C-alpha cells in the first residue's frame, strides 16, 4: 500500500488510509473543524493521487473503524457479496472511476458490482469525481422500490410532501398538505416531522393523513418522522403506518446518540412487516446527513463523507423504500457554504445510488450558513439531472416547524417541467383525475388548496 505521492516538486507522505480518505475530500468545514482536512490544495491532490492508486483490497483490509468495535462496520462487511468482491478486488480506485463512467458500463453492471463494494470503496471513488462525474455516474443508476406505489420509475421525479406545523395542529397540517397536493407534491410519501415525540401526537397525525388518503383515493404512503421507538409503540396500538422512519449515522457511537441500534431497526422492520398498513416489500424510510457524527462528537477521526457512505452501508440491509440526506441541515460548523452543500448533495446522491439505495435529496440550507435560495435551486437542478428519485416539498420553501429552507411545492412542479419528468404513474393518474395535471403540466386549477373543500 503506497501512501506517498509527489505533486510536481513536492512530496506528501500519509500515515494511514483514514488520513488519505480525509485529505482527498473537497473542502468542507466539518473536516477542518475535526482537524483532518488537507492543509493545502496540493496536499489535497496528493491524497487523491494516492487514493487513485490503492486497490479495493487495500481498502477492504483497512476499515476506517475496526470491525470488532463498531456495529456499522460489521453491517457493511457482513452484508458484502464476497464472490463479486473477489472478482474486482484488484481494481484500483482510479480504475473503478473510469469503469463507472465508461459508456460500456450500464446501470445493471453497477448494480451488480455494488454488492461487492464496501462503503469505504464507494466513498473513495466519489472523492476522485468532479461535479459532472458525479452527475454522469448517478444518472446511470436507477434504483426502484415499492411500498404502496413504485418509486424510481424511469422518467419520473417524486416528492415527499412535508406539511409540518409548529404546534402539530392537525387542521393547519392539512392546509399545507392540500396546498402541496394541488402542486403535484406527495407521491413519494406524505411525511410529517412532529414537534411532540409521543404516541398520541404520532397516532393523530398518522390517522389524519391515512383518512385523507382514503377519502381522496390518493396513491401514496404515509409516515410520521418521530423516533422509531415512538412509531413502534404507535403501530402496536393500531396506528396506520405505511413507512417506518429513522435518522441514522455512520458510527455506532452516533447511532447510540440517536437512540438506535441494529437490534431496534431489525425489530422495527419486522413490526412493519407484521402490523404495518403498506403492501411492501420496502417499508423503511431513512434520513442521513454529512456532519451528524461531527455534531454529536462521534466521528472517531473519520471524515464526514466516508461516514455518510458508511451510513448507506448500514441502511442497505433494511431494503428501504426511500433514503435521503439532509446534509444542509446540520449547520455551518460541518457544511458552511452553498458550494459545500451542493457538493455534498451530489456526493450523497452518487454514493447512495452506488449502494443500491432508492436515493432522494433534501437540497436544504439553514439561515446561519453562507448559502441562499440560488444555491439551493442550483443543487436541486443538478441532483434532478443526476436522477434523484425524489426531493422534499415544503410550502413556499420555508419549513415553519424545523426553521430551515428546502425545495418548495413550486420547485417540485418546476423541476418536473424543466426536465420533462413526470410524477409516479399511479399518482399522475390521480392528479389528472383531480384536474391538477394535464400532459405533465400544471392546469389552471392547480395550486389551489381549496379544490379539496367542496
Amino acid at each position: 500500500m503506497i501512501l506517498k505521492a509527489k505533486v510536481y516538486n513536492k512530496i506528501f507522505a500519509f500515515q494511514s488510509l483514514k488520513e488519505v480518505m480525509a485529505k482527498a475530500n473537497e473542502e468542507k468545514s466539518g473536516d477542518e473543524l475535526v482537524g483532518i482536512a488537507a492543509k493545502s490544495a496540493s496536499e489535497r491532490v496528493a491524497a487523491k493521487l494516492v487514493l487513485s492508486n490503492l486497490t479495493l483490497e487495500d481498502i477492504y483490509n483497512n476499515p476506517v473503524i475496526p470491525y470488532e468495535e463498531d456495529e456499522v462496520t460489521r453491517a457493511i462487511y457482513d452484508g458484502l457479496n464476497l464472490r463479486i468482491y473477489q472478482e474486482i478486488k484488484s481494481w484500483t480506485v482510479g480504475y473503478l472511476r473510469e469503469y463507472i463512467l465508461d459508456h460500456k458500463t450500464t446501470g445493471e453492471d453497477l448494480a451488480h458490482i455494488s454488492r461487492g463494494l464496501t462503503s469505504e470503496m464507494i466513498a473513495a471513488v466519489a472523492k476522485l469525481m468532479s461535479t459532472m462525474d458525479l452527475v454522469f455516474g448517478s444518472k446511470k443508476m436507477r434504483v426502484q422500490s415499492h411500498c404502496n406505489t413504485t418509486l424510481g420509475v424511469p422518467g419520473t421525479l417524486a416528492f415527499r410532501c412535508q406539511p409540518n406545523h409548529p404546534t402539530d395542529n392537525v387542521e393547519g397540517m392539512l392546509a399545507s398538505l392540500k396546498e402541496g397536493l394541488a402542486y403535484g407534491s406527495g407521491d413519494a410519501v406524505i411525511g410529517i416531522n412532529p414537534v411532540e415525540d409521543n404516541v398520541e401526537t404520532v397516532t393523530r397525525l398518522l390517522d389524519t393523513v391515512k383518512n385523507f388518503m382514503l377519502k381522496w383515493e390518493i396513491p401514496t404512503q404515509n409516515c410520521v418522522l418521530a423516533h422509531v421507538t415512538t412509531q413502534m409503540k404507535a403501530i402496536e396500538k393500531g396506528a396506520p403506518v405505511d413507512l417506518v422512519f429513522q435518522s441514522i449515522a455512520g458510527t455506532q457511537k452516533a447511532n447510540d446518540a440517536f437512540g438506535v441500534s441494529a437490534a431496534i431497526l431489525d425489530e422495527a422492520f419486522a413490526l412493519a412487516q407484521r402490523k404495518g398498513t403498506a403492501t411492501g416489500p420496502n417499508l423503511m424510510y431513512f434520513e442521513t446527513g454529512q456532519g451528524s457524527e461531527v455534531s454529536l462528537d462521534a466521528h472517531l477521526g473519520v471524515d464526514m463523507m466516508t461516514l455518510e457512505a458508511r451510513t448507506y452501508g448500514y441502511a442497505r440491509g433494511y431494503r428501504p423504500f426511500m433514503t435521503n440526506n439532509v446534509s444542509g441541515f446540520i449547520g455551518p460548523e460541518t457544511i458552511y457554504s452553498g458550494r459545500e452543500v451542493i457538493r455534498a448533495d451530489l456526493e450523497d446522491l452518487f454514493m447512495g445510488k452506488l449502494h443500491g439505495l432508492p436515493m432522494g435529496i433534501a437540497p436544504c440550507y439553514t439561515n446561519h450558513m453562507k448559502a441562499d435560495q440560488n444555491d439551493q435551486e442550483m443543487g436541486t437542478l443538478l441532483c434532478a439531472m443526476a436522477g434523484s428519485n425524489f426531493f422534499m416539498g415544503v410550502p413556499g420553501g420555508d419549513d415553519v416547524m424545523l426553521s430551515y429552507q428546502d425545495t418548495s411545492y413550486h420547485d417540485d412542479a418546476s423541476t418536473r417541467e424543466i426536465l420533462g419528468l413526470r410524477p409516479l404513474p399511479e399518482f399522475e393518474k390521480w392528479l389528472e383525475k383531480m384536474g391538477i395535471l394535464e400532459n405533465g403540466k400544471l392546469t389552471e386549477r392547480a395550486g389551489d388548496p381549496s379544490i379539496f373543500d367542496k
Partner: protein
Amino acid sequence: MAVANNELEKVIIQSVMEELAKKGLLSQKGKDHVMAAAMMDTPLVPNTESEEMVTFPPQEEMQISNPFNADAVKAMKKLTPARIGIGRAGTRPKTMSLLRFLADHAVAQDAVFLDVSEGFLQRMNLMSVQSAAVSKDEFLQRPDLGRRLSEEAVKIVSEKCEKNVQVQILIVDGLSSTAIEANIPDLLPALMQGLKSAGIKVGAPFFVKNGRVWVQDHVASIVNSEVIISLIGERPGLGTAESLSAYMIYRPNETTVEADRTVISNIHKGGIPPAEAGAHLTDVIQQILAAKASGVKLNQQK
C-alpha cells in the same frame, strides 16, 4: 369653483396654474386666489420628494387567482404560519412571494453576519470584549472558539470586572445581532432594576462579540460570580430574527453539562416581551440563588 377632492384633480389644477404663471397670464395674486378657491389646503409637493414607497402586501392576503373556494383558502391561511395560498406564475412563485422570501432570508442573514453596532454598545454603556473567534466566518465554523474569551478579553475582564458578585450579566451576540439591538434596551434596565430591588449584588454587564453560550463558563471562572446569565441572540428563522434566549447557570465548572443550565428562550416582541422577560428572569435568578443550583438540579428541588 368646486372643491378639488382628489389628488389627481389637485395636481391638474396646480400644473395649469404654474403653466399660466410661467406664460405671464396669471399674477401671483390671481394664482393664490384660484388655489384658495379650489380649497387646496395643503401645498402640493413635487413627486421627487414623495413619501410614497413600495411595501409588501399584508401576509394574510390570499394570492390565488380565481380560487375554487376563496373563503376556504383564507381560513386555511389562518391555521398555519406556512406559506400557503400564495398562488403561482406558471410553476414559479409570484413576484411578491419571491421578494418576500428573499427579504425574510436577508433579514435572517443580516442578523447572523452583521455585528452589533459600536454606537449601540456606547448608548447602552456596555464594555465590549471578544471571544477567541476573530471573524464571523471563524465563529460559525469553529464553535469551540466562540466558547472562550480571547487572551486580550481575559486580561480586560480580569482587570475591570468586579469579582465575587452574586450575579454577572453577559450580553452575547450569538447567532443574531438583531436580537441584541431589538431587546436589550428594554430587557437590560428591567433586569438590572429587578435585581437591585431584590437586593442582589450585580457586576457591571458587558458585551461579548462572536460568543456562544458556553463562554459564560469561562467568564464565571474569572469573575467568580454565584450566577452568570447570558442574554444571547438565537438562530434566526424566516419568521423573526429578533428572538433572544437567556441562559443561566450556578457556579459552572469543568464538570458542567448542558442540563445544568436554566434556559428561557423566545424573548422578543412577538414572544415574551423584553420588559416582561426582565421581571421573569429576576424571579428565576432569585430561585437559583436560593437553591444554589440551576437547570435540571434546580427543577428537582422544586
